[in-house]
């Protein structure tokens, strides 16, 4: 810890610049192509959403900071395509591989509505019983590191490590990103919404009543 993507609570990023409600969905044509090519390549089934998030986190700190949003997507997609042998480094250098027939795994236009409509639900049956109920006080683990892979993907932000919160609700059992991102299996376990008083997270909260809620897996939590 920590990676450059873990931004919650960081200082120094300046104002948020709102956009009109009717601003274009994609500000540039290449933004739209970047999103679409990422979804289409993902539909080949060679990686999961946790792998792809982890790939974006691993584009390199300098690149992560300087890249715009869809540049990160394209960089991570390129890295994943090479890591899964769908594309070679020579393909990238030449940009001119031989034309091949469309793979039967490729998402064709007629399949797009079904693929997007089906989505990728993350809830699963699990043998791990829920350890907490709504109202329980819990402590998040600290440091906020992946415990399966050193330096690996996790969804516990650093700002919420070692914090005391209260379980709001159980969402059921969900795929554990810390495992699934690294090809170690889905390892589903109970997932909770946990609420933290702002004063538990920040030295100078804006208001005594303010709170932050995070969705946290059972293995991120200990009883308090």
């Amino acid at each position: 810890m920590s990676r450059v993507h873990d931004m919650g609570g960081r200082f120094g990023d300046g104002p948020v610049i709102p956009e009109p409600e009717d601003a274009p969905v994609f500000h540039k044509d290449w933004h739209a192509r970047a999103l679409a090519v990422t979804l289409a390549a993902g539909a080949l089934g060679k990686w999961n959403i946790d792998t792809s998030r982890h790939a974006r986190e691993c584009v390199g700190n300098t690149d992560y900071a300087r890249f715009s949003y869809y540049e990160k997507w394209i960089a991570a997609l390129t890295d994943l395509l090479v890591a899964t042998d769908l594309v070679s480094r020579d393909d990238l250098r030449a940009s001119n591989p031989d034309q091949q027939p469309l793979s039967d795994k490729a998402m064709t236009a007629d399949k797009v509505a079904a693929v997007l409509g089906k989505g990728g639900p993350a809830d699963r049956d699990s043998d791990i019983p829920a350890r907490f109920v709504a109202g329980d006080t819990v402590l998040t683990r600290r440091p906020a590191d992946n415990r399966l892979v050193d330096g690996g993907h996790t969804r516990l932000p650093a700002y919420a490590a070692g914090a005391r919160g209260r379980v709001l609700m159980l969402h059921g059992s969900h795929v554990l990103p810390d495992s699934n991102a690294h090809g170690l299996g889905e390892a589903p376990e109970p997932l909770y919404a946990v609420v933290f008083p702002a004063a538990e997270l920040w030295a100078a909260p804006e208001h005594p009543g303010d709170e932050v809620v995070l969705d946290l897996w059972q293995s991120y939590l200990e009883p308090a």
Partner: protein
Amino acid sequence: MSPRQDRHMPHDHSDHEHAHALLPSDPALRVKALETILTRKGLVDPAALDEVIDTYENRVGPKNGADVVARAWSDEGFRAALAVDATEVMRELGYYGRQGEHIVCTECTPSVHHMVVCTLCSCYPWSLLGIPPGWYKSDAYRSRAVREPRKVLAEFGVALPPETSVRVWDSTAEIRYLVIPLRPAGTEGMSVEELAKLVTRDSMIGTGLARVPE
């Protein structure tokens, strides 16, 4: 930066350069190169890309979420069904889909204002609100929404009374949160369709309020 310099950028955790450094550094050219490579290798159908873009430019967007909010304002039974299993309600309305597989609705009251962020990436309820606006994906929003939500709200022109607390939802899992904003005064007797026109995208993220009818 030229592609040549880009290729020689150091990286912290690998013994060779990142594959992405092999593509042109200009982002539009980079995307074009990748699309061309994938198309030539038979892995991507360009017509499918057009279809994806058309979906999110023209069909799946904040109108879906606004319909949900307007129904919630209008129908106690609908609100109750959302509280029990909002995902099931989305299935029935045809608003289930990618990045909207697990939906929870959080309803603003005079005492609690809800606001949604993803500090780790850019998780957002696509099936209800479409593709997130640029500011939602910005470093500034991701870093500040959890620490200083009221200053962020002020940048959107929203000032909450001191008796209202803010609950910020950091979308760290696959649960996607839809904010149900407060129903504006002066909307008694309006139809679901009329009410939906008052529901802005920002009000369903929690960085705005619903419009007051003119």
